[in-house]
């Protein structure tokens, strides 16, 4: 009876923990293993070394995907941070309609990437979308065909993703700004600092943890981005707007290249690992210090 009392918390946790170990960590190892096999249509479990990884890095489509991911990540990150910080600072100026504006800035976050992609696909439609709108305004030569342009398609994904996620950065920063001691801002005002100086030299340096969180979350979103690409460009035209996540599912479910797909999944996993582990480490250490 006493034993049961003492171990009840562990017994209660056990099923969830077992599920976690199997479905998360077990599956990740499983995926690692498949990436070391010759699996094509179905898994085959004889060891094939790191051949799949060589094949992956020989694959030009994978290169396109990685290159696109880099373009997308840099732009998505910078623009989201820029818009998010700007809006949060502006909203922090004791605005009467703040609640209303915040609701508008953040609602895209409630929509799925498929809905977002569907809407933007129509807006960016090369014949009937923005192009037609601007031509109707009198600029009859205006062309906007990024959606079907091999070189520009990736940027349309950036546009839609920024629309969907920048409000989130705004919300994070606004929460951060609100947690700053009001007296610090008062002190700076009395010291004669302009609002601009106050934000640049005093407040933004205090927002380091928020910067960290935002960057990690945005990186995470961009590495996993799949739905939006599918809905907006489906990786096209051709494979010009492919991303690693799209590459992976394509190989896994349409090209019968399970081994190759696993190799790409392993790459994605390792990338996330490289970002998340230092972040969690510093985050947990910070909590230990403050506790």
């Amino acid at each position, binding site marked *: 009876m006493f034993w049961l009392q003492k171990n009840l918390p562990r017994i209660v946790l056990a099923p969830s923990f077992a599920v976690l170990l199997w479905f998360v960590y077990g599956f990740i190892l499983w995926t690692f293993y498949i990436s070391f096999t010759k699996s094509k249509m179905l898994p085959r479990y004889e060891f094939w070394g790191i051949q799949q990884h060589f094949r992956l890095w020989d694959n030009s489509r994978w290169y396109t995907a990685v290159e696109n991911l880099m373009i997308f990540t840099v732009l998505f990150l910078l623009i989201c941070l820029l818009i998010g910080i700007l809006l949060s600072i502006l909203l922090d100026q004791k605005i009467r309609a703040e609640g209303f504006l915040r609701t508008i800035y953040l609602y895209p976050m409630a929509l799925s990437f498929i809905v977002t992609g569907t809407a933007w696909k129509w807006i960016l439609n090369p014949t009937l979308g923005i192009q037609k709108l601007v031509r109707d305004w009198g600029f009859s030569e205006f062309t906007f065909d990024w959606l079907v342009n091999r070189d520009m398609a990736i940027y349309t994904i950036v546009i839609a993703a920024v629309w969907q996620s920048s409000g989130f950065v705004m919300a994070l920063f606004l929460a951060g700004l609100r947690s700053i001691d009001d007296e610090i801002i008062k*002190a700076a005002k009395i010291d004669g600092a302009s609002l601009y100086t106050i934000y640049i030299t005093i407040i933004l340096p205090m927002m380091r943890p928020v910067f960290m969180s935002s960057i990690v979350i945005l990186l995470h979103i961009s590495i996993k981005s799949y739905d939006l690409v599918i809905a907006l460009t489906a990786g096209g035209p051709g494979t010009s707007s492919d991303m690693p996540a799209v590459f992976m599912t394509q190989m896994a479910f349409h090209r019968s290249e399970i081994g190759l797909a696993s190799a790409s999944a392993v790459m994605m996993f390792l990338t996330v690992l490289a970002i998340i582990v230092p972040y969690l480490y510093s985050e947990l250490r910070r909590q230990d210090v403050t506790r």
Partner: protein
Amino acid sequence: MATLEVKNLSKKFGLTPVLRQVNLQVTEGEFIVLLGPSGCGKSTLLNMIAGLESVDEGEILIDDYVVNRVEPKDRNIAMVFQSYALYPAMTVRENVIFGLKQRKISKEEIETSLQHFAKMLQIDELLGRKPAQLSGGQRQRVAMGRALVREPHVFLFDEPLSNLDAKLRVEMRREIKKLHEKLGTTMIYVTHDQIEAMSLATRIAVMNEGIIQQIGSPQEIYDQPNSIFVADFVGSPSINLISGILTKSGDSFNFIPDKQQDGFKIPINGYPFKNEPQEGQEIVFGFRPEAISLPNESLKSQLRVELKPTLIELTGYEKDVTFDFHGHEVIGRLLRYSKAELGTAIPLSLDLSEISLFDKSSAKRL
């Protein structure tokens, strides 16, 4: 040169009035303490003087000039905050000179004044540190240093000591007092701690519900509170307040406490009434715990009583004894060697020259 005047100042937060028609005149070199419970409007008043809150109605004048619409930085003031409000990402040095840098003062001048005040406050060893690496007392000193280097005409303090522990608080209080004596600058200091107010102020303004209830020297506030609120708020343990009725016999008045059957009364002779009271008026009779002592022949006007202690609390040099005073609970502050035992009545003197009488319905001093 540095005077401050507040004329008919009013302020509302939404629909709630926080300040109503406040008037205050401060002359050069005064140390004014705004004292009151939380929510009485004292911090709002200070923030408005600083220019951190806008003025709804009325005027604020610094050196005879209306500053209602002048930015805080141009008001020639400095402020010390409760949370110290040090800039966390900057070192002590950067914190202290931040204000001077904003004013584009030459590097040499900044350095001289930094060194001067850093020495004065004994923070010269800490200049390279970040606020997070400082103790509470050190942060407090840095915050003071930041205010001092600006050499303002008026210093504003917003409960600067309330985040410190008891011992440090007394220490810093003394330092602020010394500082005021040394610099002679006008200071305005907000606190809810009446001991701080009593020990620092040249004048105290007691505030409640957005109104200055009374303004005067600490002694005046303590001895002649003009309302029950002021009497009760200032002093620890609090003033004893007993309600009852004023009766007249011949030329002199007597006070009969409520809940009396045995004909007990207190003669009121020579009390400086502001207005002639009426027979049968309901009043509140107040006296400080120090007014009770062991029998003392030297008191000019006194009442001899025998009271039973119901609770004895030793505070160190003195003991606070709770007595049953004809059905009312009163506290007397006796010297510690005074013999007092629970349940045994002891003879005592009540000094009648230090009493305060209030009208019961208006709560104002009679």
